[in-house]
């Protein structure tokens, strides 16, 4: 389907301007418009389409709703023979009559059909329920206009559009009005009661004024304005029942005049109003009285534009405004069974006979008339077109068109016409007129003629800006392609400009005319993310709803088609697939989503938490991982949660980090779950340091020991046990001797003991904890030196052979600046360290002696480097000599 449409479209778009277009189909007349003049205004009726539908009885017995802006048409056809079993048929057609949907109506009786601004069909039932269908007849949703309606029933309903969206207004059997200004944000407003109203009013309209929605209604001779809070009767100036009181108030305060609104200048013979119409922009109002008079004026009822006697007394079937923006002329189209009447400013009217049942659709710049076989557009002829095509017109545009015609015929008259335009120096104006007029023409041939003339005229202008011409060509190409019979959106240029390209694209997308939408985006060079990508996204969203196709092929089709488009959000498409209950497809589509941040939330929504977690981890975005983890934590039971984490180290470490700060106990559970005894042990050790009380501390350490044992980490277990032993020992000492030892390391404890002369206790520790001899000696040595307890040191040195040698003794003494004591130990130092020992106490000669004795070249050099050449000359010589002999060997 795609391919055929695409090729068709390619053909179409490129040939719109250059080919004879099929959009006016069978109708062969070159100019279908019949222009008729009312006063200064000229009207024309253009045939848009010959309807493609085949309705046996035309539009008889049908409830019809057609959307503005060339929108779709909905028909609710009553069954031929009214019987209880036969159901009415709801049919949706495009403007050209191509069937889009058709199904039997199975719900309750429908009062009114209407279209929303985004092309959804509203079916307002008798019981006040409003059902919403899309363009293809798929049910979307429904809402109710209130409970009281169920009993009283809807008598009449209207669908209206305002800046706030699409609204619905109903009048119930109890003669009460209910309004909803925007059906997408439903707020029902029940309007106040209208005095003296029984049943439905004779006619009513919904007005949007000053950001307020009001109802204007006529009940026989009385006019009322209903707003949120009040019902204001409109008092006729001509009526004799004018109360004196009112007159007084009026006289006193001119400001109150506005309270008593009235259609000014409505003829006294007019009796009751039987029909009223409000213009597309809510600016103007038309009233039709049973005397056949038509009053036209502003919607606020302050100004009168004109009043026409139509001489027809039957109430009209339909009455709509037909007025293009900026036009000064009021004009209303009134339809009876066989008659169509255009009434303008003066008393003359134009009359058309209707040969079939028709419906009028108000447009921004005209009225569309839909009949059983034809679809026509009635509009005021734009001034540019009038100027050019008026018989014997001397307007610049007309002259230019003529010049171009002559030029085509290779006639020299072309030059004459051109000269004439140039003499008046209105060539620019002529080109502008031609371009503008081209925009108003529906027939591609005429468009082309006008554009060629414009282009011809442009050649003789040096500084005419090309933009209007180029953009008009573009617009027309787009317009012609959407007006085409198969598409069936008969937009005028004015409507198109009002509607914007974006909306047009949306409408095409909504009609699933994706190839055309894409071609238009490409042709207009719409930025990809607004244009092509957006269309493709919609296409994909639609594609995933095709239930009959397997997941694989859809995923493949989507990826192929969307592959290169920029700014596509696969997650949105996947979300749509998920909404349609196609989880597997959604997951497949998510694979294409390059941004993990988009994948994860949807995966979580689809309860694919495991997948979400791994995707989050893949993304490297820890915030995302954390989101999933928190989600899982709340969703799963603890055991499963931990098991999940266990398989995902990144998430696990993240969660651990979190627990470290927030939930210490969870951390413990986490380790427990993993049987990670080592970490548990560490955990207890860590906890023990936070604990102030010794008993608690010991018990924590005991737990740590148990865990370490389970982890088969004997070393750690033993170390911890020793720590406990040490703690107990320290406590005992603290209690006995008042030392503050608790918490010190073993070495620090020993040092503290030794410096405080608790040699016996130190000795005990040394044995109990199997402190290496070397360490103990070092400790005791430094402790004694720090206390300057030289006597004890000497005793200590003699007590046993030192495991660390005697050089440390020398060094420690020197450090405490006691060379005298140091000297005592020099002799005990091993020969290898003698030199160092001598140097340490500053005995150069001794050092030299030792070095020479050892015949070590290196040591001699070390001593040499310490000698100064001035004071130790003799020594230097000796050393040098010794070195040379040592070197020889």
């Amino acid at each position, binding site marked *: 389907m795609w391919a055929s449409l695409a090729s068709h479209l390619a053909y179409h778009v490129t040939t719109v301007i250059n080919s004879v277009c099929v959009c006016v189909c069978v109708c062969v007349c070159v100019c279908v418009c019949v222009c008729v003049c009312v006063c200064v205004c000229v009207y024309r009726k253009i045939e848009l389409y010959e309807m493609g539908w085949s309705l046996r009885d035309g539009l008889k017995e049908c409830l019809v709703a057609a959307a503005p802006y060339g929108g779709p048409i909905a028909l609710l056809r009553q069954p031929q023979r009214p019987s209880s079993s036969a159901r009415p048929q709801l049919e949706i057609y495009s403007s050209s009559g191509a069937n889009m949907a058709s199904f039997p109506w199975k719900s309750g009786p429908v009062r009114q059909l209407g279209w929303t601004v985004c092309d959804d069909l509203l079916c307002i039932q008798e019981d006040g329920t409003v059902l919403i269908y899309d363009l293809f007849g798929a049910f979307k949703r429904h809402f109710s206009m209130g409970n009281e309606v169920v009993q009283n029933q809807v008598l009449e309903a209207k669908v209206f559009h305002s800046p706030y969206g699409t609204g619905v207004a109903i009048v119930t059997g109890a003669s009460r009005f209910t309004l909803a200004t925007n059906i997408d944000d439903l707020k029902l407003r029940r309007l106040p009661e209208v005095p003296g109203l029984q049943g439905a009013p004779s006619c009513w309209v919904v007005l949007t004024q000053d950001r307020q929605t009001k109802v204007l209604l006529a009940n026989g001779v009385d006019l009322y304005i209903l707003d949120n809070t009040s019902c204001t009767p409109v008092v006729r100036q001509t009526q004799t029942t004018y109360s004196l009181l009112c007159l007084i108030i009026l006289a006193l305060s001119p400001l109150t005049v506005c309270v008593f609104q009235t259609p000014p200048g409505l003829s006294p013979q007019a009796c009751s109003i039987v029909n009223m119409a409000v213009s597309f922009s809510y600016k103007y109002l038309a009233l039709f009285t049973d005397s056949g008079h038509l009053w036209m004026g502003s919607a606020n009822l302050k100004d009168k534009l004109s009043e026409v006697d139509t001489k027809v007394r039957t109430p009209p079937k339909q009455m709509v405004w037909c007025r293009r923006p900026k036009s000064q002329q009021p004009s209303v189209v009134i339809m009876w069974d066989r008659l169509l009447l255009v009434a303008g400013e003066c008393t003359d009217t134009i009359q058309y006979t209707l040969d079939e049942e028709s419906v009028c659709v108000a447009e921004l710049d005209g009225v569309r008339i839909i009949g059983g076989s034809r679809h026509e557009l009635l509009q005021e002829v734009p001034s540019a077109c009038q100027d050019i095509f008026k018989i014997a017109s001397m307007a610049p545009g007309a002259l230019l068109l003529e010049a171009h015609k002559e030029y085509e015929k290779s006639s020299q008259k072309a030059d004459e016409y051109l000269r004439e335009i140039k003499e008046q120096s209105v060539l620019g104006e002529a080109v502008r007129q031609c371009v503008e007029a081209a925009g108003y023409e529906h027939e591609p041939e005429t468009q082309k003629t006008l554009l060629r003339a414009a282009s011809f005229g442009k050649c003789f202008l040096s500084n005419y800006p090309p933009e209007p011409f180029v953009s008009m060509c573009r617009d027309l190409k787009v317009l012609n392609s959407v007006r085409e019979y198969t598409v069936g959106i008969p937009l005028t240029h004015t409507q198109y400009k009002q509607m914007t390209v974006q909306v047009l694209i949306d409408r095409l997308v909504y009609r699933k005319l994706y190839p055309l939408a894409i071609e238009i985006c490409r042709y207009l060079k719409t930025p990809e993310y607004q244009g092509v990508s957006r269309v493709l996204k919609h296409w994909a969203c639609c594609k995933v709803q095709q239930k009959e196709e397997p997941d694989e092929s859809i995923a493949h089709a989507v990826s192929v088609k969307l592959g290169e488009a920029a700014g596509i959000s696969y997650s949105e498409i996947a979300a749509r697939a998920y909404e349609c209950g196609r989880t597997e497809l959604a997951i497949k589509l998510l694979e294409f989503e390059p941004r993990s941040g988009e994948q994860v939330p949807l995966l979580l929504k689809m309860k694919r938490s495991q997948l979400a977690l791994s995707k989050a981890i893949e993304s490297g*975005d820890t915030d995302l991982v954390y989101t999933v983890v928190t989600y899982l934590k709340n969703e799963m039971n603890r055991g499963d949660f931990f098991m999940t984490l266990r398989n995902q180290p990144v998430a696990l470490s993240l969660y651990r980090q979190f627990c470290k700060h927030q939930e210490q106990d969870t951390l413990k559970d986490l380790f427990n779950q993993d049987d990670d005894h080592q970490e548990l042990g560490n955990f207890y050790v860590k906890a023990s340091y936070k604990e102030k009380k010794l008993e608690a501390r010991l018990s924590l350490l005991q737990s740590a020991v148990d865990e370490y044992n389970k982890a088969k980490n004997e070393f750690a277990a033993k170390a911890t046990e020793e720590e406990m032993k040490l703690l107990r020992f320290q406590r005992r000492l603290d209690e006995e001797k008042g030392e503050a030892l608790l918490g010190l390391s073993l070495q620090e404890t020993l040092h503290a003991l030794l410096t405080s002369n608790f040699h016996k206790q130190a000795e005990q520790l040394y044995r109990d904890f199997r402190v290496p001899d070397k360490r103990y000696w070092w400790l005791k040595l430094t402790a004694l030196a720090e206390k300057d307890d030289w006597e004890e040191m000497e005793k200590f040195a003699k007590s046993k052979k030192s495991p660390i040698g005697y050089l440390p003794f020398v060094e420690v003494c020197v450090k405490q600046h006691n060379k005298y004591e140091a000297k005592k130990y020099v002799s005990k130092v091993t020969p290898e360290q003698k030199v160092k020992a001598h140097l340490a106490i500053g005995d150069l000669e001794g050092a030299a002696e030792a070095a020479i004795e050892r015949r070590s070249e290196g040591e001699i050099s070390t001593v040499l480097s310490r000698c100064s050449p001035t004071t130790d000359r003799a020594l230097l010589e000796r050393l040098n000599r010794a070195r040379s002999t040592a070197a020889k060997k």
Partner: protein
Amino acid sequence: MAHSVRRDAPELPDFSLLKRLARDQLIYLLEQLPGRKDLFIEADLMSPLDRIANVTTLKQHDVDKLYKVEHKPIVSTSDQLCFLIRPRIKTVKWICDVVNADKAFGRFRRYKIIFSPQKFYACENLLEEQGIFGDVTTDEWSFYLLPLDDDIISLELPEFFRDYFLEGDQRWVRTAGSALHLLHSVYGPFSKVYGIGRCSKMAYESWREQVEEGEQRARQAEIGNVFLIDRDVDLVTPLCSQVVYEGLVDDIFRIKCGCVEFCPDVTSSDKSIKVMLNSQDKVFNEIRNEHFSQVFGFLSQKARNLQTAYDKRSGMNIKQMKTFVSEELKGLKQEHRLLSLHIGASESMMKKKTKQDFQELLKTEHSLLEGFEIRECISYIEEHINRQVSMVESMRLLCLLSLTENGLLPKDYRSLKAQFLQSYGIEHLLTFSNLKQLGLLVEQQPGETLTVMESRVGKLVNDKTAGKLTDAFSSLAKKSNFRALGRRLNLVPKSDEEYDLRVPRDMAYIFSGAYIPLSCKLIEQVLERDGWTGLEEVTRMLNGHEFAVTAGSNGSDARVKTDSQRIILVMFLGGCTFSEISALRFLGREKGIKFIVVTTAITNSARLLESMLDNHA
């Protein structure tokens, strides 16, 4: 001292732009909370903030009082509180307490939290849990990069190392990616990206993602190539004692955010002085990359020159004197001041470092790097522990031993660990557990070593599966393979040759000629080969994750050696040391290229190991 500087070395891009961007954004954010407000600043954001906007600037934008975040109840009287913090749970929790306390007190204030450089979901989640999400407004100050010097940019995220490499928390990876993206969008487009390590790869991917999301602008690139490297690719280098001047200053005095505080015995006065250390300091600029043994000579030469410059005065007439005073004297005075400071610093360092034990320490380190006399080294370390010289130093030596030897023998491991615990306290049981997890200090597996198994497996199956297996093994135990790497890349020069530190011949000079830093050697090799070809063996030993990608479409332009092609951005994920920066500067001079170092933080052995401690206060 004069290096043969290649004259065509390209100009470095101007990074002050980054500061301006950060300042403007901060001001914008502050103005989002109109009116007077008190500003609470996270402690470790204070110095970086100072480099971006000083107190006067802040006061100009309605900041009333400045407080440091101390996790204590606050005393502010202002009605508007603004918190400028890192996205840390602890700090956010404190803010929650502050807000809830106000609520309980019935006090109404407006609160705004500015997270730098970004906010995390966890933080917002906490605000929600504590029920104050609606009471505070949050914002992000995307202050990713702080230019510390012409060629050093820091993310100032010291916790990156621990969070990523130890805790396996990847939240900062995206930050690194964003930082790279910022550089790319301001100074890019980069033409080629090399990298090694898992984190590098993730940061690279995160950056690519951001590039694809954003729009592309064609611009003249100011930075050509990028090299990303994980800190755990080379853990040996940061654990070595630094002997280059700048590194040594960092080791001893701790340079903080490009600024050092010299204590009174350096300044030879009674107060400490804060000094900015960067290329603006002419004296420092000349000695920062020198081996310490050369610095003194240089400084005395400098002093003599200065004296001569001063002495010029004597023979001057009045006019000359006038120009001298107006033009030169100020510069000389400044130089004088700096010179005396650096001489003071050198003296103080000399005092500490020329002592016998430092020499022995260096000797042990070098033996470890070379793999000589390991038993002596072990007993040295043992004595070091026994004498409680310094906890961090002891740990550093243990780690170096383990890294260079591919783990300790079980016997040594146990006895050293036991002694360490006795010396420095049992709490280090946890530290050891951390070190083990990171692979800094491990026990050799009894029996067949993994390397053997791996190579056998590697022969049996194809490369791809072997890669996966390697991954699997590496999760069991991270090995350093230092010896094999050293041989392969010739990291340890032969020790019998005399190394002239005056005229360095390779990057080994930064470690007195004993060792070429692995990280820098890798960079050199990859740039030389324009990729990883020929280094397969090396990358296998480093656990892979290497990549080399030609970014962007201008692949053909990459061959053209424009100036920007010779500016290389090196990003260290997990921190780098000043020694490495010096080595890269040396390499740049040799090759006629310029390196820009981007690091998550400046680190050194002490900072690295301190981050491994479990602070249990």
